[in-house]
């Protein structure tokens, strides 16, 4: 359950400075209690932050639902071990998502490093244009369509697209992280985009 801002700190946008300060103070109180091994604080910590972390991991690993819960568990245990190093420079949820991002990238890396990580069974041909974004205007529809298409792609294609566009990593960074050449990553991305596009236009 999200923290209740005090009436003085309440902001319609939820982003004003007093609100942010109240939120930060509230987080610091919660962190201090968790570090004192207060079990009720641990319960509050889980109740507040499990949803955003689960939502993030679930989106990034879909359709591998079998992995999501394990990754979320790892994130929380790592967070518990490192909680005393949290400086408050970002929000607590941002910090937790940062830990989750590392775990997700570990998964992408393993998929792209796998011997069959670069499938050749999909045509290389890349058409000149990109799909129209008319569908994207309706965010909810685009979300479900995108998820459906990603689920149909070979795992290496899916990992490459999510890593590149949803995690905003450059092909150079992906290459360095996987030990592949940048050219190989770009080839993989080109194939992944072509496959995605074909499914986008026919679905």
């Amino acid at each position, binding site marked *: 359950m999200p923290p209740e801002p005090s009436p003085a700190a309440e902001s319609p946008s939820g982003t004003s400075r007093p609100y942010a300060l109240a939120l930060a103070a509230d987080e610091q109180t919660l962190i201090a209690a968790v570090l004192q091994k207060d079990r009720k604080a641990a319960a509050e910590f*889980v*109740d507040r932050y*499990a949803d955003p972390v689960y939502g993030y991991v679930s989106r990034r690993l879909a359709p591998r639902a079998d992995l999501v819960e394990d990754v979320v*568990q790892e994130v*929380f245990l790592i967070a518990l071990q490192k909680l005393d190093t949290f400086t408050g420079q970002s929000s607590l949820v941002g910090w937790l998502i940062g830990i989750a991002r590392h775990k997700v990238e570990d998964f992408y890396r393993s998929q792209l490093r796998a011997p069959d990580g670069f499938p050749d069974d999909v045509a290389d041909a890349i058409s000149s244009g990109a799909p129209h974004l008319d569908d994207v205007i309706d*965010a909810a529809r685009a979300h479900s369509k995108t998820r459906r298409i990603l689920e149909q792609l070979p795992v290496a294609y899916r990992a490459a697209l999510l890593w590149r*566009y949803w995690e905003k990593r450059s092909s150079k960074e992906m290459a360095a992280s996987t030990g592949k050449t940048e050219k190989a990553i770009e080839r993989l991305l080109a194939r992944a985009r072509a496959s995605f596009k074909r499914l986008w236009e026919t679905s």
Partner: protein
Amino acid sequence: MDEERFFTMLAETTDAAPETAERAPSRLKSQLYSAMVTEQAASGPLRSLRDTKAEGRPLCVFENVVQVVPNERITSMNPCRICHARILAEQFESPPIYWPHCPYVHFQRR
């Protein structure tokens, strides 16, 4: 629109979609809480239930019984470890548990 721009916009749009606000299963929250408390207990005693209560955090009926014992070691134990509520909540999404101030019951709230 070129491909790079298409995929960049698609990522931004879909991440902002309301459907992306998925909620963690209560079963998972229960497992996370149990794992956290177990991990904390492994490195030394938990904060005593008496102190937790004094801090204004309400206890469940079983914790209330434990916290009156005049022994710090016992009030720092984790009674959830042997509680039926924990076992049921870790296995089922809507278990028949209704104890007030039990975190495992609280995780069921939607």
